[in-house]
């Protein structure tokens, strides 16, 4: 029996879809059978980010309304063994699916896959309720901005009310230099408000944009720090105990020297 994880945030543009794509690719690279579900009906993106847009024939609404079987709608990613996508519909809206149908869908998918990762739409309305309906666990993505943290806090409250206990936090687009200057919320600042387990911190990285625009995922990029962060998060999901990435390293030789002589 697989595990159903929903990736959510409340606020838009914090990196839910990017996170979903990278975790999916990451888990698949560890030999897991993964199904990514795009629950953002009407504004589908996950297929584009994964570079699978041109292979869509059936979508999630076709499955829930019985037009086709799940197997027919699933798109197998040929680059990564074990990675599958169930795309959202683009011509319908969030009301085309209801929570009961999602629960049923997740029940079927978890029989086939080790991990089912649901990309939740922004907001707290029907789309959100659909996305969390069948989930066992939740990952909340936020960026170090007051608005995103506020929305994350709201989402955590709603998840707890829906009995999705102990959601995990991913902090995205973190910029250590700005934090050091006091211009950005630090990990501690966010932890003080949200007070949930931290699954990982992904630094701001141009490489994310570069890979995403090519329909690839940064998790497969060995050189980038964000890729390393996503690989670490993947391993934590698999139950490994991986220490947080030292984001200061990229500051260069000078600060490394300072650290060595204990100036910090």
């Amino acid at each position, binding site marked *: 029996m697989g595990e159903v994880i929903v990736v959510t945030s409340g606020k838009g543009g914090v990196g839910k879809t990017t996170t979903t794509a990278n975790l999916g690719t990451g888990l698949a690279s560890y030999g897991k059978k993964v199904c990514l579900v795009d629950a953002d009906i009407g504004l589908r993106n996950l297929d584009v980010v994964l570079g699978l847009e041109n292979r869509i024939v059936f979508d999630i609404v076709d499955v829930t309304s019985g037009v086709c079987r799940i197997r027919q709608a699933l798109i197998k990613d040929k680059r990564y063994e074990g990675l599958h996508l169930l795309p959202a519909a683009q011509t319908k809206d969030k009301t085309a699916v209801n929570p009961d149908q999602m629960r049923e869908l997740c029940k079927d998918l978890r029989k086939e896959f080790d991990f089912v990762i649901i990309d939740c739409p922004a907001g707290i309305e029907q789309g959100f309720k659909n996305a969390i309906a069948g989930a066992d666990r939740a990952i909340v993505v936020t960026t170090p901005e007051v608005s995103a943290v*506020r*929305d994350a*806090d*709201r989402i*955590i*409250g*709603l998840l*707890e*009310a*829906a009995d999705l206990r102990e959601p995990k936090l991913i902090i995205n687009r973190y910029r250590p230099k700005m934090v050091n200057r006091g211009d950005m919320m630090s990990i501690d600042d966010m932890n*003080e*408000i949200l*007070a949930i387990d931290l699954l990982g911190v992904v630094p701001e990285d141009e490489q994310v944009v570069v890979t995403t625009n090519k329909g690839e995922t940064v998790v497969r990029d060995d050189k980038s720090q964000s890729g390393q962060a996503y690989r670490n998060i993947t391993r934590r999901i698999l139950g490994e105990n991986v220490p947080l990435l030292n984001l200061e390293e990229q500051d260069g030789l000078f600060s490394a020297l300072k650290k060595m002589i204990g100036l910090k």
Partner: protein
Amino acid sequence: MTKETLSNSTTSHPFLGSFPVELAEMVDENTILVQRTLRSGQSICHDGNVVVLGDVNPGAEVLASGNIIVMGSLRGVVHAGVKGDTNAIILAFRLRPTQLRIGNHITRPPEDESSDPDYPELARIKNGVVTIETFNSVIK
């Protein structure tokens, strides 16, 4: 979904009979205990006193006809004495409200963030003005 309104229950106190007469007058039955952190969008509304064992995050609100005590950081909106009781108090381990109301007084913290005390504080109305004081100076 999470909006909860806890109504006042007026059942008699089971232990009240065992108190000495002069103490019994001081016992307040209408207090509820909220044993979790209130997150953004969550709200507690109660006819009586409210004690929160946790934080009140920004975007959350606590409304009470009596006093409000927060055993944690208070960062949201609080209104004590909703029905106009100007004797109501608000006490928090870390008093950093978005907005603080007592009775018909509405206040917000000063714009400059110079004061960021690390100890419990108490807000109440003194001479018609909402005043914030250190909790320790009040209890003795």
